[in-house]
């Protein structure tokens, strides 16, 4: 049976980027379909009727939604190459815990750094740095969150980096100054071809966000 893989996505979405990296790590050929989130395609609405969100992976006609679930699926199906999750159950549990932590903590605090002003923005910045410090603590002296090898947690976190230029410019802060270890980890990830190719340029993301901020009355 032909292996047909389609990805419904939106170019700056950090959740979509996770899936792109996972597919690239596994060497899977797929068709990329860019969604206009203001005008969602019938295919997207049909494949993700519950959330109507991207990313959606469609494998041989069957839909998969929610990026952590999609990435775990990819890891289970294309299991002969580049394992993303550890094989030990305890290590797997730790990896799942940290991806869940990233999803609970990174997105909301970061979003507020560019959608709010004044006190609310300051509080968001503070929260963001606390999250980064916690992650730095977890990384420790390891090259990657997965240990010696790039893995599930690294893949789930690195996509946020293409938004850093935006956060730093809107929020007027510098991540490298506060969290050099974190940026060192970022640079190691960017040395991987799969990551470098999947991440859009930070300035391009900033241009896109600037247009949105103008609409929100923040510029």
């Amino acid at each position, binding site marked *: 049976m032909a292996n047909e893989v389609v990805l419904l996505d939106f170019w700056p979405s950090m959740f979509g980027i996770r899936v792109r990296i996972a597919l690239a790590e596994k060497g899977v050929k797929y068709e990329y379909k860019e969604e206009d989130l203001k005008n969602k395609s019938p295919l997207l609405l049909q494949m993700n009727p519950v959330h109507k969100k991207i990313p959606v992976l469609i*494998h041989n006609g*069957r839909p998969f939604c*929610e990026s952590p*679930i999609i990435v775990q*699926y990819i890891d289970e199906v294309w299991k002969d190459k580049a394992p993303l999750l550890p094989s030990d159950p*305890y290590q797997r*549990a*730790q990896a799942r815990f940290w991806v*869940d932590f990233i999803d609970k903590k990174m997105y909301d605090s970061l979003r507020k750094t560019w959608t709010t002003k004044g006190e609310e923005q300051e509080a968001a910045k503070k929260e963001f740095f606390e999250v980064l410090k*916690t992650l730095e603590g977890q990384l420790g002296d390891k090259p990657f969150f997965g240990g010696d090898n790039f893995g599930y947690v690294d893949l789930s976190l690195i996509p946020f980096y293409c938004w850093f230029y935006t956060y730093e410019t809107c929020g007027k802060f510098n991540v490298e100054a506060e969290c050099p270890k974190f940026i060192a980890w970022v640079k190691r990830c960017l040395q991987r071809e799969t990551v470098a190719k999947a991440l859009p340029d930070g300035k391009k993301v900033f241009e896109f966000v600037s247009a949105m901020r103008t609409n929100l009355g923040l510029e």
Partner: protein
Amino acid sequence: MAEEVKLLKTWSSPFGLRAFWILKLKGVQFDFIDEDLSNKSPLLLQSNPVYKKVPVLIHNGKPISESLVILEYVDETWKQNPLLPEDPYERARARFWAKFGDDKVLASIWNAFIKQGKEQEEAIGLAIETLKFLEEELKGKRFFGGEKIGLPDLALGWLANLIGVFEEVIGVKLIEKERFPLLSAWMQEFAEAPVIKESWPPHEKLVTKFRAIREPYVAAAAQPK
């Protein structure tokens, strides 16, 4: 080495109950401690420094936190009575519904529980819309896991007893049998399943607890604006 399994939970937490259920369903020997969250034990604080919450599973001294993570860990470590199917597509679906339960169902029902007046009406409407997805998913199935209890059943299991508690406190029926025949049947079947039926926290005690939790929201809404 002797296997040491310890579960930190509370008497009422639905998240702790999930972990309790899976350990019992698998026949794992374990100890549990019901924490007093106003006076958290050093063990809890040390085992879950990130969130300082229950449940925490401690297996041979190694802690695991977050109930859905615990469920998958237990399922992978003790292979009897598997909770997740073998097929990757079915596994993804099981994880999807478990996550939907926590992200959407729980949040929408909690809103219906704490909000007042017009806001409550809207929240109830939204909760019902969310529950319709569950009703749809149960078509042709006895449990969310199919013929037997699976990951999404354990994740959504809190509905089977807490809905009744919430409905009693707010005086509104959220899951009506006519509107949700499959979900109502599932709640009953799940509540009476072996292991599950012996584990429910006492109903009256839960009503008292949640009534007290709701008080400040009621009082705030009654304040003249």
